[in-house]
């Protein structure tokens, strides 16, 4: 089953695509909430139950997103990968900068592991949102509207 709708009626202004960007934004929000929660305890060691749950929920949303993405037809995949690789590079650098700041501030052990997992999700999720948003409007079906 395809999540896209190639049989959209002629003249429909909005080709249907899976809600990858919306889910990605929800995953991003979970990471941000977890990050704010952890930062609010600095310089003390934060309790990790809530951040781990938030990171796990965010990771689950990312997995669902990837599955939906793989089942999407008609996406402009060339644009998806073009935008994806450059935004990925950009957000890996941004995540590295954040990681550097926390390591420099003596974040160690389990909190650092949770933080790193959140940053990995962040660095994957934002490029996914951006490249998907570009690619869905560059698709042949979008052109036809």
């Amino acid at each position, binding site marked *: 089953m395809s999540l896209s709708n190639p049989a959209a009626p002629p003249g429909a202004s909005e080709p249907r695509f899976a809600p990858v960007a919306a889910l990605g934004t929800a995953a991003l929000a979970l990471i941000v909430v977890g990050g*704010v929660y952890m*930062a609010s305890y600095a310089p003390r060691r934060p309790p990790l139950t809530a951040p781990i749950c938030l990171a796990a929920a965010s990771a689950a949303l990312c997995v669902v997103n990837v599955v939906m993405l793989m089942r999407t037809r008609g996406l402009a995949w060339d644009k998806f990968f073009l935008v994806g690789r450059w935004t990925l590079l950009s957000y890996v650098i941004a995540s590295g900068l954040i990681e550097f700041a926390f390591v420099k501030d003596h974040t160690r052990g389990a909190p650092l592991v949770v933080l790193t997992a959140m940053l990995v999700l962040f660095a994957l999720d934002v490029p996914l949102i951006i490249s998907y948003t570009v690619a869905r*409007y560059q698709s042949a079906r979008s052109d036809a509207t």
Partner: protein
Amino acid sequence: MTDTRVDALSTGAAAELATATGQGGSPGALGPPRPVIQIVPLKGLPVVAVVLGFLVASIGFNWQWGIDFNHVAGGGLWTGIDLFVGLVVGPILGRMSIPARAEFSARFMPKMVLIMPTLVAMTLASGYQLALDLGNLKASSPNHSWLIVSFIVVGVMAVVALGLLEPANIAVLFEMRKPRPNGEVIAKLMKRFIYTAGITGLMQVATLVIMTRVASQ
């Protein structure tokens, strides 16, 4: 950005937009040649690298002036640009002709793709260091609760900017590079600016209140 802008850009605007960007029709009727839209202005990348290098060095070497400079300069510009674009440039743009809007956006938005993330990185990374150095993050500090509110404000802005605005910005630039840009697509993406301008403006005003409050305690 106003509703007028979006309405005017919607149905039927594609042809006019194409003309504005130098596509379609006879060459003599097109006016100025279509600006080449570069999604990321490559000439700006060395500047970004220098700024980020300065930021990393300031944090890495605990350079107090550098940290202060990054936070004050980055934060001032971030807030100022956000409010200026939302409250001054947006409404002016909404009253301009579609070709003028298209040409302005084609030149303006690529620069914002570089400027805003750089300012955000400068402000947040140095701000966190500053808060740690000054002891404002300690639970006993009178500024602790204000800083938590500021984290929440920044979190809301991050979700809005990274989840909604930046993807839309880049998608609009790609659409405008097409031989015949789709006015409906651009209008739909531009609507996000209207929906989020109020949130961002409110958050920036809150940031001004919080930061002046923190600095005066």
